[in-house]
């Protein structure tokens, strides 16, 4: 049985004023089921990052509601929202965003320390072990490679056992080998632990790791793929949309099935 961990209803987000007014999201309604891996794609300015920020409670939409694990974010004040984010949501950034003065282990335990809890050392060790960095606990970010830093960031996102992990271009700053490691890690979380993961990416190869791909254009939900997702299929669908932005003529993409890795 699957339930929806995250529900978005009629999201609208607007930035700037007057002639510089930009509608980043224009009525998006969707949901992310528990234990699934969703990729959100779209060209620059399509609103995919805004969608992620709104869903994760980092930004507030102008209209619409966000519900995470049964709690509506609209009703929460800044402190309550922070607490919810801290306890129920994990976030992985493109630029790693580790605190440079803290070691890997300290970075991982930071969210719990901010919540006023001191996690047992073995929990931190286990979290680092899960991302394959048990031996790097005492290193600072500057002593780690990009891929390692991003895996520390994943471990930090998981330490609070969140109901959903949001990742914003997690492989954007990594080479392909490191990207594969991080993506396999996220995939493993979904398969082995039933973790819900939502990832923004512009890379079809990264999207291929997901169970479902949402395509955004001009702040609206333009297309959706489920099942049989490969890099080629995703790339083809994007190429189609570029030539046929209305998305009316829809080829039977489901026919071209290749096993995903």
């Amino acid at each position, binding site marked *: 049985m699957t339930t929806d961990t995250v529900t978005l209803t009629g999201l609208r987000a607007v930035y700037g004023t007057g002639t510089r007014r930009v509608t980043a999201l224009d009525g998006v309604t969707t949901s992310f089921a528990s234990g699934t891996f969703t990729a959100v794609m779209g060209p620059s300015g399509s609103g995919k990052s805004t969608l992620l920020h709104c869903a994760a409670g980092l*930004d507030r939409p102008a209209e619409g509601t966000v519900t995470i694990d049964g709690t509506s974010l609209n009703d929460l004040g800044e*402190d309550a929202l922070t607490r919810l984010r*801290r306890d129920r949501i994990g976030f992985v950034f493109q630029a790693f*965003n580790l605190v440079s003065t803290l070691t890997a282990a300290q970075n991982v335990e930071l969210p719990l320390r901010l919540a006023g809890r001191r996690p047992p050392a073995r929990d931190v060790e286990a979290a680092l072990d899960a991302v394959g960095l048990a031996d790097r606990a005492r290193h600072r970010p500057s002593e780690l490679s990009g891929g390692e830093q991003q895996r520390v960031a994943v471990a930090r996102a998981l330490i609070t056992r969140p109901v959903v992990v949001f990742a914003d271009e997690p492989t954007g700053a990594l080479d392909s080998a490191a990207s594969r490691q991080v993506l396999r890690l996220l995939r493993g979380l979904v398969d082995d632990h039933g973790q819900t993961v939502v990832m923004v990416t512009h890379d079809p190869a990264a999207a291929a790791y997901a169970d479902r791909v949402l395509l955004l254009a001009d702040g609206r939900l333009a297309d959706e793929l489920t099942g049989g997702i490969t890099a080629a299929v995703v790339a083809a669908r994007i190429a189609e949309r570029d030539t046929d932005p209305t998305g009316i003529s829809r080829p039977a993409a489901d026919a071209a099935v290749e096993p995903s890795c």
Partner: protein
Amino acid sequence: MLSVRRSAGAFVAVAIGVALVTAATLLLASGRPQVPDRLARAAVVVQSPEAGRADSFAPTRPWSAARATELAGRLAGLPGVAAAIPDRTFYAQPLVDGRPPASDGQREDAHQGHGWSSARLGGLRLTAGEPPRRPGEVVVDRALGLRPGTPVTLLTAAGPEPYTVTGLLDAPGVHVADDVAATLAPGVRAIGLMLAAGADPERVGAEARGVVGGDGRVLTGDRRGALEPRGDARTRWIGMQVLTATAALAGFVTVFVAASTFAFTVAQRRRELGLLRAVGATPRQIRRMVHREALTVGGAAGLAGLLVGAALTPALGRVLVDVGLEPATFRVRYVLWPLAASLAVGPVVALLAGWSAARRAARIPPLEALREAAVEQRPIGRLRVAAGALLLATGAALSLGTATSDDARDGATYALYAVMALVTGSTVLAPAIVGPAVRLLRSPVRRRGGAIGLLVRAGALTATRRTASTAAPVLLTVAFAVLVSGMVLTTTAAYTAGRADNVNAGWIIAPDRAPGLSDRAVAATGGTALLPTTVFVTEPEPSTGIRPLNALGVDPAGFAEANRVLDVVAGSLDDLRGDDTVALTASAAPAPGLPPEPYPVVFADGERVPLRVVAVVTDISVPGDLLLPRAVVRAYDPSALTSTVYVRDRVDPPLGARIIDVPAWAAEADRAEDRLVWLCTLLLIGVSAGYGAIAVANTLLLAAAGRAADLRLIRLAGATRRQVLWLVTAESALVVLIGAVLGGAVAFAGLLSIRAGLAEQVGATVDLVVPWPVIGAVVGLCLLLAVLASVLPTWRLLRHRPARSAVGIVAG
């Protein structure tokens, strides 16, 4: 999350602030009145009744000779009292080689004479010779190098008198036979009680209080410090004002500098703080984090400052004595409360300074972690604009108060608060002013600067807050220096001009190495003399206080001729003759017009004399409160000294005098005071300029670290090393220039209002005196440190080749 390097500026600022506060409060606590050595052996001293406010430093109202004898007799009869000795003090100055010794100008007690019995009160013993018994015999200070039996000339109020040294003492001043002292100083201001062995001073004091009642004060123990020379009390009071002002300024400026450092640190850490928010820190936690950092810095810096301040205090105390801000009897004493208070200053100041930074830090949204470039957005908040506008309005209102205030002292206070408000306001509003100011300066920079001009302008415009926080300390420093020094010099010049304007004479005879001129010296000049003395009137009901008044003994015809501003509103100065007449100023008169009833005053000899009021003059007519015939002053104050003689033509100055022209006399009339005022002005400017320089250097150092990536990019884009150095130099110079111009504008606004106030008070146009050397030094210091603080780190950075360090994404 604490970074020592980032907080270094705040640490230094708070440490120096606490050191200054520690030193100032320790010195303040040490500056207690000292029991004069002369009276140290009298366990109980009865002092004649106080007159006037405590900070007027008027002498006490003396008892007459008869009253003193009667009181001494009754006090001597009290149980436990071995002797009650009236202490008399008068002017007497021994001449060495026919002139007053050079050192006597400063020491009040070196030209004081006393009766021989007073020596008992200080436990003084002859080191050689005999006590004085007859008129013409004197005991002098051993330090003069005279031997018993040799003749000596004593300069007294009457003139030089021949005396014979009968003995030597190891104490300043001269002692004559008691009968002689009683003629020279009939009035008595203190009666010392020598106690029998084993008598309790407090109990004797209580009984003495029963004897004197309201006609004096009974002093025991440390309270006998009230007997210190008036000059010492005055010097100490000035010193206290300077120390208080320094401590207050140090505290005020410390908050400023530390606040700008914290604000800057927070601005630099926006990304990091946004990240913390994103991974789950609440605004409250961020605020508490900044507070805790501020507290840690404040506590550590406070401790360091306390130790430094306490260690430096004795040296500072000696300096204060040397420049004449504390009396020679001043000793530093380590007392607990100043140390405890100073220890609290560090954390409190740091918390105050961190308050707004913490508030701003807590408002950083979590999305800040995702922004790439550190381009500042909203340059200034609405609350900040409101606060700045309010402060500027307050400053303007206070300036108006300065301009319309009648009292000079009130005016100066208003001016200081006005400037504090104006400076704080313009610093708060600086980010809003910086944009237009940079645009205003744009054209010359654009035409001359080429690529560098473009970069400088763009940098200053986009990072208005960085520019503003660097310009703010310059603004503060320059505004303060210009205003305070300008105010002091303009005021001095205005008063000097006013004084010179009032006098109609060719030359002026003034005392030289002596407190005043003797009668014989005055007679030798043949000019118009002023003979000042202090008289006392009882204030009308319901107040029963005693009011000291400055009386001038004059020859009315000569005085009227030499005085250009004399304005008689009632009666006539021609009637000022005989032995019972007086002319009052309007404010000393009990009612408008000539009062028909007698006007009773108490003279220096303690006698109460009813006088006839023959004239009333305006307040600005005379440099005092009332005029008396010269002979009247002399009759009731045998030791009064002439302060000034107006003469028409140049004459040879008599003994203990010199001749100067009117402008020179006007300029030096308050020279000692002006010197002290100018000294503390420079001290205050030094404190604020030092802080300003620290703040500028600190902000630029922090900014240089944050701009490393930028500068490397500029290098990669093809700029030579020299061009980059020029860029940072031009940037710093621009910032200092903006701060100096804004600060100068604020200060000139204040100065103009002060000038308007002075013009009204002096009744003449007043020239604005602007101390360009001081301003130049302050701006130059800021410029020098600013350029050093930005060029040195850049130069270090540029030693490496541009491509060696990463330019791209910087983690966390």
